[in-house]
């Protein structure tokens, strides 16, 4: 049976039309941000430069794509329609009359839908893993920089140990199917996921020690929410079955957090060593504040500029790491629609078909580019102050 095709111009129009929820959301958010940019602080200042606008735009685009993925994509990313095997872009699927906008891959799945759904995986894992890495890095980097001495020596040695590992080797060792049979990923998850709970508990404790009414509410909330998420992620024992993560995704998550937290640690340590010589820290010490109060409420807020920039860059880097994992077929399921896996599958067949390779590569590149542009303009804006 012969497939029908629509022309290149119609493909472009079709793609633009499929993204309609994204365009509406983008116009609303960007318009609102632009109108109220004076009142939005650092985020508002981003709209003063074209680089910043482009960066925010690209990031929001992929964010909304991930949110509205089920509306945008015409097909299920895992369903194979045999007649569409290796179909060229613009092929019409005879049964439903819908179009394979970017063609079909070697397993006859819709490349466009897979690209759209791939954004979901990336946009959940990359920011979340970066968040955990930030928590781990900050919680360990603050005392290392503030106290110095032996604690600094030990923690820096450990951080350098991890940094001396080539990332790819680390992943080959940590993200293998075999390791799932051992308790190692769960032990590491159990350790890493403790850090946010510790961080917020200490944060509230040092601030509201003298005000029990506030303290108990905040501490209670931290422990209940933290414990709930912890139980769901590490033991897969969420009583409400809301928070759930696949064992192999947990493994990837842990490996990515493990690989990127030493970097955060080093940055935080350096910033703390710089900031602790300032007058306001000396003033707090004279007032008799506890060391952890000074670290969390005097030093950390003043280190936020470089940390926000670093977080943006790090989300991009984590996206690249996830792609690397997918490219080597580590961790993620083979049929998973994430961009790295799609690039791996397509790049083996580049000699015969190139159309399945381009959408995921351009998607990954544009998202990381958006984050880098965002980080760059954030850095410029924070330097102006």
């Amino acid at each position, binding site marked *: 049976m012969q497939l029908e095709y629509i022309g290149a111009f119609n493909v472009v129009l079709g793609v633009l039309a499929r993204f309609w929820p994204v365009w509406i959301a983008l116009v609303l958010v960007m318009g609102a941000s632009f109108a109220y940019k004076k009142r939005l602080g650092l985020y508002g200042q981003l709209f003063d430069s074209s*680089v910043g606008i482009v960066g925010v735009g690209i990031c929001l685009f992929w964010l909304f794509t991930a949110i509205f993925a089920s509306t945008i994509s015409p097909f299920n990313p895992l369903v194979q329609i045999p007649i569409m095997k290796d179909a060229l872009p613009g092929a019409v699927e005879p049964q439903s009359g819908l179009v394979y906008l970017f063609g079909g891959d070697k397993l006859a799945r819709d490349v466009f839908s897979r690209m759209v759904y791939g954004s979901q995986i990336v946009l959940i894992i990359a920011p979340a893993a970066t968040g955990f890495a930030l928590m781990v890095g900050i919680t360990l980097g603050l005392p290392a920089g503030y106290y110095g001495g032996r604690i600094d020596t030990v923690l820096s*040695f450990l951080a*350098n*140990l991890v*940094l*001396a*590992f*080539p*990332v*790819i*080797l680390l992943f*080959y*060792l*940590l993200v*293998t*199917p*075999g*390791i799932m*049979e*051992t308790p*190692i990923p769960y032990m590491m998850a159990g350790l890493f996921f403790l850090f946010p709970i510790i961080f917020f508990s200490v944060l509230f404790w040092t601030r509201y020690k003298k005000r029990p009414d506030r303290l108990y509410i905040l501490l209670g909330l931290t422990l209940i929410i933290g414990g709930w998420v912890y139980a769901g992620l590490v033991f897969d024992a969420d009583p409400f079955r809301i928070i759930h993560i696949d064992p192999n995704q947990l493994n990837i998550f842990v490996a990515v957090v493990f690989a990127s937290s030493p970097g955060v640690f080093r940055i935080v340590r350096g910033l703390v060593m710089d900031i602790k010589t300032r007058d306001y820290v000396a003033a707090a010490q004279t007032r008799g504040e506890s060391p952890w109060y000074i670290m969390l409420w005097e030093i950390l807020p003043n280190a936020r500029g470089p940390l926000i920039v670093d977080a943006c860059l790090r989300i*991009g880097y984590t996206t*690249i790491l996830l*792609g*690397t994992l997918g*490219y*080597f077929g580590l961790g993620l399921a083979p049929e998973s629609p994430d961009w*790295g896996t799609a*690039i*791996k599958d*397509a*790049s083996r067949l*580049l*000699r015969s078909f*190139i159309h399945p*390779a*381009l959408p995921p*590569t351009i998607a*990954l*590149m544009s998202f*990381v*580019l958006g*984050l*880098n*542009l965002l980080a*760059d303009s954030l850095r410029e804006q924070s330097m102006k102050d």
Partner: protein
Amino acid sequence: MLSFILRRLGTMALTMLCLTLVVFFLINLDPNLKKLAISQTEMHTSAEQLESWLVNHGYRQNFFSRYGQWLGVVPKQPVTDPATGKPGRRFSFCNDPVEPTFSGVLQGDFGCSTKFKTTVASKLFPALGATGILMFWVLVVMVPISLLIGILAGMREGSRTDRTLSVASIASTATPEYVSGVIFTVIFASWLGLLNGSAASASRGITFYNFTLPVMTLAIYGIGYIARMTRASMVEVMTQQYIRTARLKGLSFGSVVVKHALRNALIAPFTVIMLQFPWLLTGVVIVEVMFRYQGFGYTLVEAAGNNDIDLLLGCSLVSVFIVLITQLISDVGYAFLNPRIRVQ
């Protein structure tokens, strides 16, 4: 200075010891050993046969004694053949000693590769040589281009050249090797047909036709990063007092840049370039797999994929060594280039 280097070398040895221990532990986890036994024996072997294969090949000895044997601080024991009771070699394809001897990494014996059926040394070192050639060409391309971009951009901060080049370098840092590799292959191999999309033939002889794509792919990710660091350094130097003095005494802009700014602006990028090696290592793995070039990265992936214990240990030792030695060179070199820094 000498004591600084000695202390750093000591830390380096300690780091390598810790890291190899971690790798040794992870690689010898029970599921990994089972996988190795399954791949090394015939199909459909029973669990007992797998276990006896592991015992016969010495994989069930005490963990620390095996690590010591690999390291060369515990004498390597020959395995006893269960049929004859005589001591024999672990693997027929490499000459393990038949008497207990100290034969480990410290003595220069890296062990046997179960995947390639040869000694690790005879597989690893040619592969390193091949990767060395790739690295050389990458550096030849990457360093001059990135320094040039960085200097041109940082010369006049905020100018149109600066904006364009900065966005270009941001774009290049946003392009990991597996993305640029695919894009370059599509453009230069599939559409234009100018270059070869596979570097498999480069092992026999490097030509422009088969080697350009891997070098380009590997260089592009680093170019952006080094260029940005160079630009930052250049911008800082251009705001210094002595640059203004040189301008005011009537030197032309070009000669100020070349004679006064350049030398000081190139100190920071030196460190960055040295620290770029660990990143290149990951890139090398991706590029060699993508373009089927038989080098270090390709060996590493084969070793990891087939759970080839000794080969993977050798690979990790080499890569960790490269990372640490480049860090040391960058520190020492920085102190050497910048006389204001005194190492203690």
